[in-house]
């Protein structure tokens, strides 16, 4: 049974992002570059048009809706801009994933890596389905709504009733393409960072199992002819110490990998956090205001669901990275260190010392990606929405 390749975890994301020209290449063709710039320009100008229309729209519920969409699209453009600057670092990370420190383990532990790869692929497919469905619903909604004439999926600064028909069609098509491009790339991008975090967590787990296996008693007894196991103290120290030193090198590789993820994606996380909090607040407010069963209500519900899911994804994976890396010290304690001599114990002590400081992924160094910060974000967004509700309904 061969071992899984870690790049399988983000293969689908790679295809998604290559389709919209966002996947980094070391030396891309001119055509690919122009293609990427066109997509980025579409998303940026879409965000701009939403911003201008916010100043023009009169209807209150439409205003809130438009602000929440603007926040989402702004989030996308900021993330893409940040990623553009971090492209060289990302390419180095992809090369680093081929290092032997990620393929040293026994085949029996491959199951952890395979599990996370399977999970990442299922997640991206799920996200893709739900995202595409939502986008299609948003784009089709004006065609089903017969109350207002010439309505675009999202607010646009021009009053389209006064313009010729082909301008209306052009605006409609532009909004379709821009929304689709933004959603498509965003789905691939979010799942990229989360699958990297999943890889880091699974490598920590594999390292834990490897460490515990080093002092396997059967192997120890077989290599020494002592009949009483208690007299094994310090006998196989040299061999065991060498194996521990190799584990330290693997540990360092995992730490380097996680720090690279942090370096590339930290401001992306920050923008995601702020925009998610703002989005949840605005959409929550719409939710409270709208009558149950109306189109606004359904739109608010689905959008709220998407935002919550996005931010929970980041926080759960970040939490997993932290938890798995802090358990490496526990793995050292679980070995049969009682039978090892002072040389091994000193090495083990230093491994435990390093694992006392777990690997924490942060959002721009402001917030940790963990389950407790998820609870805090949701709580604060809910309280802002309640305050807004009180102010508006005085």
């Amino acid at each position, binding site marked *: 049974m061969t071992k899984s390749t870690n790049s399988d975890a983000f293969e689908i994301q790679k295809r998604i992002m290559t389709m919209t020209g966002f996947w980094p290449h070391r030396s891309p063709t001119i055509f690919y570059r122009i293609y990427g710039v066109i997509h980025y320009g579409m998303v940026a100008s879409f965000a701009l048009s939403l911003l201008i229309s916010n100043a023009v729209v009169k209807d209150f519920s439409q205003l809130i809706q438009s602000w929440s969409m603007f926040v989402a699209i702004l989030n996308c453009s900021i993330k893409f801009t940040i990623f553009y600057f971090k492209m060289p670092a990302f390419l180095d990370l992809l090369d680093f994933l081929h290092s032997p420190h990620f393929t040293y383990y026994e085949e029996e532990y491959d199951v952890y890596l395979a599990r996370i790869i399977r999970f990442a692929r299922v997640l991206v497919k799920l996200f893709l389905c739900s995202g595409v469905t939502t986008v299609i619903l948003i784009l089709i909604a004006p065609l089903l709504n017969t109350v207002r004439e010439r309505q675009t999926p999202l607010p646009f600064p021009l009053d389209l009733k006064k313009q010729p028909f082909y301008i209306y069609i052009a605006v409609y098509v532009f909004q379709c393409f821009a929304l689709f491009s933004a959603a498509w790339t965003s789905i691939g991008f979010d799942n990229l960072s989360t699958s990297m975090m999943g890889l880091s967590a699974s490598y920590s787990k594999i390292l834990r199992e490897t460490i515990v296996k080093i002092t396997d008693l059967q192997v120890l007894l077989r290599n020494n002819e002592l009949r*009483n196991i*208690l*007299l094994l*103290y310090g006998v196989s120290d040299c061999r065991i110490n060498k194996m521990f030193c190799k584990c330290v090198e693997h540990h360092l590789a995992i730490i380097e990998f996680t720090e690279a993820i942090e370096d590339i994606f930290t401001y992306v996380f920050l923008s995601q956090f702020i925009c998610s909090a703002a989005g949840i607040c605005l959409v929550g407010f719409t939710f409270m205001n709208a009558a149950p069963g109306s189109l606004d209500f359904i739109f608010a519900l689905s959008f709220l669901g998407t935002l919550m899911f996005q931010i929970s994804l980041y926080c759960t994976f970040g*939490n997993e990275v932290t*938890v798995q890396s*802090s358990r490496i*010290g*526990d793995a*050292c*304690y*679980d070995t049969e*260190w*009682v039978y090892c*001599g*002072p040389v091994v*114990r*000193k090495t*083990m*002590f230093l491994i*435990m*010392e390093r694992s*006392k400081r777990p690997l924490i992924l942060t959002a721009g160094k402001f917030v940790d990606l963990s*389950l*407790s910060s998820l*609870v805090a974000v949701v709580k604060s967004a809910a309280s802002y929405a309640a305050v807004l509700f009180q102010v508006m309904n005085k």
Partner: protein
Amino acid sequence: MMKFKKAGLVADLFPNIRLMQTSGHFMFNYHSETTGAVHGLRVLYSSVHLVLVMAQFGFTFGNLVQESDDVNDLAANTITVLFFTHTLTKYLYFAIRSKLFYRTLGIWNQANSHPLFVESNNRYHALSLKKMRQLLIIVLTATIFSASSWTTITFFGESVRVRKDPENENITVSTEIPRLLIKSWYPWDAMSGLPHLLSLIYQVYYVFFSMCHANLLDSLFCSWLIFACEQLMHLKEILKPLMELSATLDTYVPKTADLFRAPSANSQDNLVDNDFNEKNNHNDDLDLRGIYSTRQELGAHYRSGALQTFNSGGGGIGPNGLTKKQELMVRSAIKYWVERHKHVVRLVTAIGDSYGIALLLHMLTSTIMLTLLAYQATKIDGVNPYAFSVIGYLLYALGQVFHFCIFGNRLIEESSSVMEAAYSCHWYDGSEEAKTFVQIVCQQCQKAMSISGAKFFTISLDLFASVLGAVVTYFMVLIQLK
């Protein structure tokens, strides 16, 4: 049919387990007879309880929907529904995840033991048993008291529903509703006579058994924590003798023989041969006195292997001339300590796995319920049944949270004090092996063992303080807004 033997945690917690089985929890292990017929009867018994509990919960919820037009009634009914949500959650949670509970209960079936530490082990085991019994009695008393005071308070005050008159907004109209413990919608008319009596008995049963379901499961969890804490105290106590024993391996220690005497109340027997020891000590005096003074001058410690050549007769190991058997005893003592500690860590992990999600759901329900209770508390206007019931709900909810927070906190404190015990056990007199042992133990025990609510929060008194603070804050803010 195997005769079922009580061992480990099951034996200690047997009263609790039997009470849970009697109250209808889906726990089908730990019986002597496991024939198909008897098992079927037990499943039937638990299912009947489940159906009755869910039916009454449905009736209470129906009443909530029926009376949802008035804000005050809505708030009061929501509190009642949430109160009984705890029970339903715990009941169903146990039924679904009972395998994890059985695993945790069976984790202590094969405990290791060492002749030198048996007495300490037994002492702390007896202590934990006593504490578990005390906890069970307290929880049962509190449950019976709450159920009976709920029943009593039903017979005070007016049993009416107050509504605004549809014709005139300023007049309120009161309609008579049945005098029952919980306001419920029944498909039969429960105003008076036999239906009323039957409904009353049904509700008394429901209130009492619901409280039992939730509280017994919580006390099972807390008993596990008590057991883990007492084991940690046992480990802390034997660290000092362990250090002294370990020092004999490669440092000269006077009166080595005393260390190998098991501390027990009545016997003064040595564990290892007396004559052999005396011969060795005699050897020490005769042959090694000169060598020891040199060694003391140099201040060096020698490893066990190097000293084999110095001993003339008997082949003792180390500067104290230990026999092979004594050396094995020392090494096995160290191994006993480490294995026992790892066993406690496994137990705490299993407890966290089995009960973590239940704690998360409990805290979610409690948060919402306490918020609403703070709102209700602002409407208290005198010493009447309303005030008593609101205060009763508040105290009960806070009491439930306090119950597991205090034991979770004790676990955190005990597990982090192991490191302090390791530091204070005269490790500086010990061998190199002893020092590295203390090093690794201190390293591992710096991180306290704690129970988390599915990784969202830790169960400690901090949690209780934040819950209490939140309730007081809401109350103050709402009073201001009135």
